């Protein structure tokens, strides 16, 4: 750690990991409800558990992005953070607002939550991923503005690098597109159309800038490859991301009441969306192969390589699988979608945040370069457990999805939704098993922060 104020990143990372545990606990509950339908019913119905699972995911990723920015921006700018106090204040506001919202989901019926938070004044609730009460959404905007101010002022007074600039553009985009969550017209088609301006333009747009910037930062630090080379790659990757991803939004406009021409625009442009993810894989491996030094934090390098591969598989390959309109006609809204959603979110955004935490956390905790060997070994085990179990979750859901698509949508004698669900239950059991392994991997990950702390730092492998 070069600048004292970078230490504000630490609480952000800790909160991120804490909420991650909550997310996965609810994931395992959801997985069980798929096969034991009345599990926890009516206390925690599926829809409530799902909101908790997905909203915790988004909130902890935001904690992770903000923590990453607070670490990365001062170091890139070669100056202290503009206001560490503001960053800490926003941390507490965001944590309290987030926790209150989750408790609201769990403790009162959703309709009651909507009533007591006065959803009627500006109805924004009840849409997938955007279930937060309107007041929470306003809180998110306030936190985001204060955060951007803090980061922006830091950037202004310091050195400007491509990495910090791209990170900043990505974060501004994140905040700007979130504003569409306040637009909820009565017209269902319009509602759906602009909903994707949040969801798609986040994960297949501006978040890719954030991911690219963090990846570039960690690669610069751990490989010692010339910054000019890395930043050139970064620009090409994010250029491809937006060139393909902006019009690629059209892959969500095939069947929601929008004009037919979107089947062409969406298919052609979204078919190019795997390119930037593929480039990230090439980029990460290339830089590590051309490294000028061996960094003692081998766990961080593993996460960096891992995220580049898994993002390509989850977003690139599994995304491409169902993105062409004639295919999507049959797979739209099936377990294929869930399979892709899981591996893409994990591979790209979970893993990039864990990459940053892996690199930065030892330094934030007073190490000069890396954790002890022992701690890193446990961390790498958790990497493999989580990553391999996510691969299996994806494969089992894909199996379920292929059968579902066939039996319910493709065959001459289609069966009803619920009948099909019964027939493919075995895949859901297998997914649940893989989910439990994921949870074990996560607990191992957490334990790596407490193991080998008294031992000396790992040294550079020769």
């Amino acid at each position, binding site marked *: 750690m070069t600048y004292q104020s970078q230490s504000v990143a630490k609480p952000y990372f800790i909160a991120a990991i804490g909420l991650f545990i909550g997310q996965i606990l609810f994931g395992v509950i959801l997985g069980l*409800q*798929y096969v034991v*339908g*009345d599990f926890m*019913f*009516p206390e925690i*119905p*599926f*829809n*409530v558990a*799902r909101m908790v699972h997905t909203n915790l995911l988004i909130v902890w990723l935001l904690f992770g992005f903000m923590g990453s920015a607070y670490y990365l921006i001062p170091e890139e700018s070669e100056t202290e953070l503009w206001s560490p106090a503001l960053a800490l204040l926003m941390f507490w506001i965001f944590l309290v607002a987030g926790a209150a919202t989750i408790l609201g989901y769990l403790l009162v019926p*959703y*309709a009651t939550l*909507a*009533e007591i938070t006065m959803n009627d004044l500006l*109805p924004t*609730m*009840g*849409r*997938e991923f955007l*279930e937060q009460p309107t007041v929470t959404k306003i809180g998110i905007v306030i936190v985001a503005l204060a955060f951007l101010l803090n980061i922006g002022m830091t950037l202004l007074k310091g050195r400007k690098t*491509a990495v910090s600039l791209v990170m900043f553009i990505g974060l501004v985009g994140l905040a700007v597109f979130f504003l569409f969550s306040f637009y*909820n017209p*009565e*017209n*269902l*088609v*319009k*509602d*759906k*159309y602009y909903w994707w301006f949040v969801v798609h333009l986040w994960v297949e747009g501006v978040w890719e800038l954030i991911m690219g910037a963090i990846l570039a930062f960690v690669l610069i630090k751990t490989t010692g490859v010339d910054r*000019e080379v890395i*930043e*050139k*790659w970064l*620009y*090409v990757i*994010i*250029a491809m991301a*937006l*060139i393909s991803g*902006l*019009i690629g939004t059209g892959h969500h*406009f*095939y*069947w*929601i*009441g*929008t*004009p037919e021409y979107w089947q062409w625009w969406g298919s052609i442009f979204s078919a190019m969306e795997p390119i930037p993810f593929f480039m990230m894989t090439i980029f990460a491996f290339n830089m590590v192969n051309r490294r000028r030094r061996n960094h003692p934090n081998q766990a961080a390098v593993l996460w960096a390589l891992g995220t580049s591969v898994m993002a390509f598989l989850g977003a690139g390959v599994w995304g491409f699988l169902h993105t062409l309109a004639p295919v999507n006609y049959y797979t*739209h*809204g099936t377990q294929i*979608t*869930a399979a892709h959603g899981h591996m893409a979110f994990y591979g790209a955004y979970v893993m990039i945040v864990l990459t940053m935490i892996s690199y930065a956390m030892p330094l934030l905790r007073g190490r000069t370069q890396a954790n002890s060997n022992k701690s890193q070994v446990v961390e790498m085990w958790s990497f493999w457990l989580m990553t391999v179990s996510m691969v299996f979750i994806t494969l089992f859901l894909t199996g379920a999805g292929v059968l579902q698509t066939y039996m319910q*949508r493709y065959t001459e004698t*289609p*069966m*009803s*939704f*619920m009948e099909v669900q019964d027939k493919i239950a075995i895949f859901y059991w297998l997914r649940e098993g893989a989910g439990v392994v994921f949870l074990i991997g996560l607990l191992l990950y957490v334990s790596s922060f407490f193991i080998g702390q008294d031992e000396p730092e790992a040294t550079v492998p020769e």
Partner: protein
Amino acid sequence: MSETFTKSMARNIFYGGSVFFFLLLLALTFDTNSALPELDNRQNLTEQVAHGKKVWETNNCIGCHTLLGEGAYFAPELGNVYKRFGNSTDAIKGFIMSRPKDGIPGRRSMPQFNLNAEELEAVAQFLKYASEINTQNWPPNIQG
């Protein structure tokens, strides 16, 4: 990457490409918006339907179901439920009303939302309106 292709060239492609395709997205959005009246069944978007959409939202129906293929995958597609239930809003209302409070042992069950008569009618009308949106023939069959 080769030496003749410089970082500033890459940066310019990023800025130029992003701005161009963002403007293209805006143009297509504008065009879509003017094509929507023919497709989105707005002539049937009554006050009651709007109220139904609110009932749909404030009970988080999307947390289990898909609507036009978007949402959760735990329970059946509802964009075409009006047609699947024999073009009957009464059948929809009857189903929602009759959900047992404690669920069905061992099975996935829908909660009992205790909707009043007005809310029930509104949400049923909302689903009828949704089923008449022009979705380019999606879903492939009545099972959704």
